């Protein structure tokens, strides 16, 4: 017999779980992105809340998100409409979205945890201020959170106080965090962190920045990545659209794939072309946000189901799969918005659509190795970069038909020299950043002309 007082296993959450534990599973950068996502959700709703397809032309140029990062302070400020008092009182601050919560249309936010987890990760003195329109006038409030006092108050009362506040310049939200946690303070002192943050914003919010949204870090606004695929000659990217119906709700899917850059000549991992390789791979977009970028892992298929693992030889390939739905919970987002939920049925169902263009590219790069270099490069150079928004619909990626020809056998020359000497030679050849392979070839031609003369 189970005694009466032991008939229930206690399962209440603790505050510490939210402050100290789930903050471990997300990077600082992704926490800042959670706050940006919230601002963007506000802006997207105000701008009409339509499906975030590539063809959609919603104008976001009225909206601005400013981030300040100091060694002792973090703040983010937007003019994206703010949180209403009702929303603040009823659900914006709850941990986990209530089932009956009204979701914004086509939002990035879905789980009801992002903002809280983000500020807890950053520091322990938090001020969240909102100005919103109420019956035509402006109204404001602020929610101060002293994390240590809140923790010390025990797990009985979870609520935060809402206080009156002055209006911000425009309806929007301002979040300030001081008393930074040590790791955050250290990152904020690193110029490398801030430059990489800028780069990641330029990439992951490229679709929003393209629509005119302003995101500023330390007063400097960020230019989004121009995402482009090459088209022309015998190359043509694929662009296909699909529609799904899940639980009575529509989910829109677009797949684009093709050549993003001319593949490298040289697949030596110590080579000097990693930069291009960084852009290659698959991108997964959920309601406009790039959640997985330049992926070369099993998540996007590489190395699964007879699909080879990524190899530098495949550099130059880019694919995008773009999901959007009024209900973000139907999309394969993870709570950190930094990956895809590989168990998602929807995502698994579209993997074959990603597999086809990847395989076509793999076959092409294998075949191109068997052909004359000049001919291949000439063909590839006919294809010009086109913004993804302008790529024409096409069910499958088109790549040159490769008929393997007989060619002169080749000898590979491989040697190492001290890098300072190579740089000196490259400089003398006119370009201190000349690829090593090019320096080698030019040296060979030079010696050949000198010692052998005419062929």
């Amino acid at each position, binding site marked *: 017999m189970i005694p009466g007082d032991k008939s229930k296993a206690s399962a209440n959450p603790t505050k510490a779980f939210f402050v100290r534990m789930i903050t471990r599973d997300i990077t600082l950068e992704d926490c800042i992105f959670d706050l940006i996502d919230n601002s963007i959700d506000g802006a997207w709703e105000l701008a009409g809340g339509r499906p975030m397809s590539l063809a959609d032309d919603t104008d976001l140029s009225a909206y601005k998100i400013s981030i300040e990062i100091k060694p002792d302070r973090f703040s983010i400020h937007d003019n994206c409409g703010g949180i209403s008092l009702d929303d603040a009182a009823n659900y914006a601050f709850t941990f986990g979205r209530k089932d009956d919560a009204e979701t914004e249309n086509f939002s990035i936010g879905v789980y009801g945890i992002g903002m809280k987890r983000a500020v807890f990760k950053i520091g322990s003195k938090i001020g969240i201020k909102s100005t919103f329109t109420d019956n035509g006038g402006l109204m404001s409030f602020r929610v101060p959170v002293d994390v240590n006092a809140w923790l010390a108050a025990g797990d009985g009362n979870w609520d935060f106080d809402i206080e009156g506040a002055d209006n911000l310049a425009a309806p929007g939200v301002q979040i300030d965090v001081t008393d930074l946690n040590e*790791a955050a303070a250290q990152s904020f002192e*690193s110029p490398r962190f801030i430059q990489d943050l800028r*780069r990641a914003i330029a990439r992951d919010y490229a679709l929003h920045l393209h629509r005119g949204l302003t995101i500023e870090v330390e007063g400097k606004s960020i230019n989004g990545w121009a995402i482009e695929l090459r088209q022309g000659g015998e190359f043509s990217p694929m662009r296909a659209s699909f529609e799904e119906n899940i639980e009575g709700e529509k989910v829109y899917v677009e797949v684009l794939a093709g050549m993003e850059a001319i593949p490298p000549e040289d697949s030596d991992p110590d080579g000097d072309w990693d930069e291009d390789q960084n852009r290659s791979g698959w991108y997964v977009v959920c309601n406009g946000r790039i959640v997985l970028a330049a992926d070369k892992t099993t998540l996007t298929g590489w190395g699964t189901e007879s699909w080879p693992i990524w190899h530098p030889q495949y550099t130059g390939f880019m694919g995008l799969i773009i999901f959007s739905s009024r209900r973000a919970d139907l999309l394969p987002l993870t709570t950190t918005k930094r990956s895809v939920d590989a168990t998602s049925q929807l995502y698994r169902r579209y993997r074959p659509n990603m597999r086809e263009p990847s395989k076509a590219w793999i076959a092409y790069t294998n075949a191109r190795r068997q052909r004359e270099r000049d001919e291949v490069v000439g063909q590839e150079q006919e294809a010009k970069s086109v913004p993804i928004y302008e790529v024409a619909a096409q069910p499958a990626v088109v790549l040159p038909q490769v008929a393997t020809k007989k060619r002169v056998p080749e000898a590979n020359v491989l040697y190492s020299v001290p890098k*300072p000497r190579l740089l000196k030679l490259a400089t003398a050849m006119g370009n*201190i950043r000349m690829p090593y392979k090019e320096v080698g070839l030019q040296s060979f031609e030079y010696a050949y002309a000198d010692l052998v003369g005419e062929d």
Partner: protein
Amino acid sequence: MASFDSINYSLRPSKSVQRGIVFHGLKALSDAMALQNSLYIGFGSIWFTDFVMAHKALEIDEMISIEANDVGFRRAEFNKVYRSISVVEGRSEDKLPELLNQGEYQARPWIVWLDYDGALDEEKVEEMRWLLLNAPPNSIVLFTFSATQNAYGKPAQRPGRVADILGPVVPDELSREDCNQENLPQTLASLTMDFLSSVVADNARPGGFIRSFKIPYFDSVGMVTVGGVLPALGTAPAARAVIADHKWQGIVDEMIQAPPMTLKEVATLQAELPCLEDLTRARVQELGFDLLEHQIRSFQRYYKYLPNFAEIVS
């Protein structure tokens, strides 16, 4: 050709100013952080100018000079100005780790000034990284290198080359203009400083890095000195207070271009100083000669640090 064959470092006016600022600052830091027991490590060459100042201004006895050049090493041994200087033959990237392995040196703060020959490159950056992560608590590190534009490639390649050397701290939008002859020293100074801060922050070194010296200067070529403090946890506030003081001169915003001047010119201008207003070009002309505006500014700001001019005119 080794650099000591071409110049006596003590005779370059801007370099002297730079050295003056550095030792003035080191003195303040050393007092605040109680660094009298520290070890001075540098490239003394055959002149040991910085070693003399370390001994006199900072009262450091034990000093180590590293010299890679074999003739230079023999000459350094011959010329070393104090008994307590040890000259070590070899390259710093080999010798610094060896010094760290000696228990007696590991336990004391280091004041290290790597006054390099030549431009910034991947090797120097690697050495900086090593030193930032391995120098004992309460160390101060300084690096000097040339910012002469041609060592960083042609104008179109320079921003990329700088990014190759310093990595992700370099903003993607670094422009050709940022890297032209006039701006390159300031650009390299700022970005190298960013690099130093990032290495320490990204690797969570306890105590952090305090940006202390950022000095672009120009004699016949652009040069850059950057450096900072690697305080022990407890000493960080005292060190930060020194740098935060408005009297701190280690962060220089305008390139130092002290003009080579004759003894007579120096004496004439010095008689006008100190004065609160800016010395004007009109006034210099009134005094009977002429200098460019920026030269006058450098002179007024830094005349106390100028070398003994008798040596220059001789």
